[in-house]
């Protein structure tokens, strides 16, 4: 039981760090994709969505190469900390972030599309700069979709397995997350212990999705009533 708690705690830690990365990065990417016109937008869209279309194992393998001693992330971390990030919980968080990023970007893009750009134009005309406009007009009007997207990314990060096990391994107490612990227990034939963690996963997943769906429904209703103008 004690090891269960520490496994869940490590999983939550990894997913939280991953989410802390995907929230600002996802918002920046969604904003670029929804609000801006630029060359290479199509390419960026494909690259951001790619993790949805690739086997997570492939992402893990590519990431392993990047954080290994030959990859640029590996070289930076080696010169800073004297070691690569391979087989650390940070590598697991990176893997979780990359895999959940497309879901976050898509949710944020949908949330941003729901905000009437004329309101942003009006705010600028009233003396509000672009950043202030984002935080006082865009974000407050999109917040339900943004929270929902963050939740979706968080549960995706929690359930990440394929990429994580390649780049971070399955080291008990250091990189073993809930999914990799379930995998170990199934392999060892310890079905009771596997079921316990599976149940935890289901409870977390159901709770997060319920809140997510509730928020999306609320934001859809909200946008309907805010679009009014003509009588």
């Amino acid at each position, binding site marked *: 039981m004690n090891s269960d708690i520490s496994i869940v705690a490590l999983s939550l830690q990894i997913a939280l760090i991953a989410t802390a990365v995907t929230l600002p990065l996802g918002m920046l990417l969604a904003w670029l994709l929804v609000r801006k016109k630029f060359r290479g937008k199509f390419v960026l869209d494909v690259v951001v969505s790619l993790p949805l279309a690739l086997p997570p194992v492939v992402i893990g393998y590519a990431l392993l190469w990047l954080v290994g001693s030959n990859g640029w992330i590996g070289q930076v971390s080696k010169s800073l900390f004297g070691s690569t990030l391979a087989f650390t919980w940070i590598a697991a968080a990176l893997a979780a972030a990359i895999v959940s990023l497309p879901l976050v970007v898509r949710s944020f893009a949908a949330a941003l599309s729901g905000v009437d750009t004329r309101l942003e134009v*009006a705010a*600028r005309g009233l003396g509000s700069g672009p950043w202030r406009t984002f935080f006082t007009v865009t974000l407050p009007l999109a917040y339900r979709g943004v929270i929902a997207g963050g939740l979706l990314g968080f549960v995706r990060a929690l359930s990440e397995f394929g990429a994580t096990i390649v780049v971070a391994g399955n080291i008990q107490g250091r990189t073993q997350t809930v999914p990799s612990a379930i995998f170990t227990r199934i392999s060892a034939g310890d079905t009771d212990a596997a079921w316990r963690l599976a149940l935890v996963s289901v409870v977390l997943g159901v709770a997060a999705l319920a809140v997510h769906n509730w928020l999306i429904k609320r934001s859809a209703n909200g946008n309907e009533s805010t679009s009014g103008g*003509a009588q």
Partner: protein
Amino acid sequence: MISFDVQLLRDGFTLDVSAELDDGITAVFGPSGAGKSSLLNCIAGSVHPTGGSIQIDGHKVYSATEKIWVAPENRRIGTVYQDGALFPHLDVRRNIEFGWRLLPENERRLDPLEVAEFLGLAHLLERKPNDLSGGERQRVAIARALATSPNLLLLDEPLASLDGARRGSILNYLKRVHAEFKMPMVYVSHSISEVVSIASKAMLIRDGKVEGYDRPSALLLGAATAGGDVDSFQNIVDGVIGESTDHLTTVQIGESFSVNISTRHQNKTPGERVVVSIGANQIILAAGEPQNLSARNIIKGVVTEIWSKQGKVFTEVDIGHKYIVELTENALKDLGISVGNDVFLVFKSSSVDVFDA
């Protein structure tokens, strides 16, 4: 004073306009797609022109050759959009204070609550925009722009989503705003009635080019009769309620409310401010004073202008306020009137619409 020389190339459309506007209310008039809103967006800074320059009160906010570009938030221009574009997550008070809060304290020339009071919004401050009527939304949008004490107020079809009664009321508010705060305004519209009612000068834009810049009635009715395409023109004037009998109410109109007209009975108290609207095609023109008529309104005036083209004629008659009257080419010939002649306007009390100001 606003001067601009703006070029904008966009998807096969070219806007190329230049003008100097005075501190009055200038209407920008033209068919949809003529480039009216594009011009407004260039002045406001939400659209980047392809070339030219824009100057407001001696400050250049844009110049292609000098590479000057002032961001919209630093231009001190207030804009009122067609449907208000109010922030739905903020109540009326927060909407009105939105831009005012961003001003440095020594530049807060107007008190948002006084502006709200002026526009009759004091009782709505806690409401959210979704709980307002169309007319109330527009008044909040005007108040929100005013509270930033802008150097220029831009209005982009501010009445387009309102019904007739509310149009007159908002027009009246805008006139009072201009009289009270002395703010130059640029008013984009495709309604001749609105433009003639509110603007001191009008600019006619067609296919991205300025076709005329003149007194509104002179420019627009001339242009409209030439094109043979005038919507039913409404004479919209301010008025004050006078005496009432069982069936009729007198409304004073004109420059100093010197002209009395009879309308159907209004449930209003004497002295109440109203907006009066009469269709140009509801008025009969008489060369001499008519006798024994059922029509309640027979008002003497002087013909100040006549436009005539392809069977359609508009005359402008000064009765203390300039009224536009529509008639036919034949009727004009039979009447034998010309500019400077005395005439009588005849209309029924039931042809007059009276709205709350």
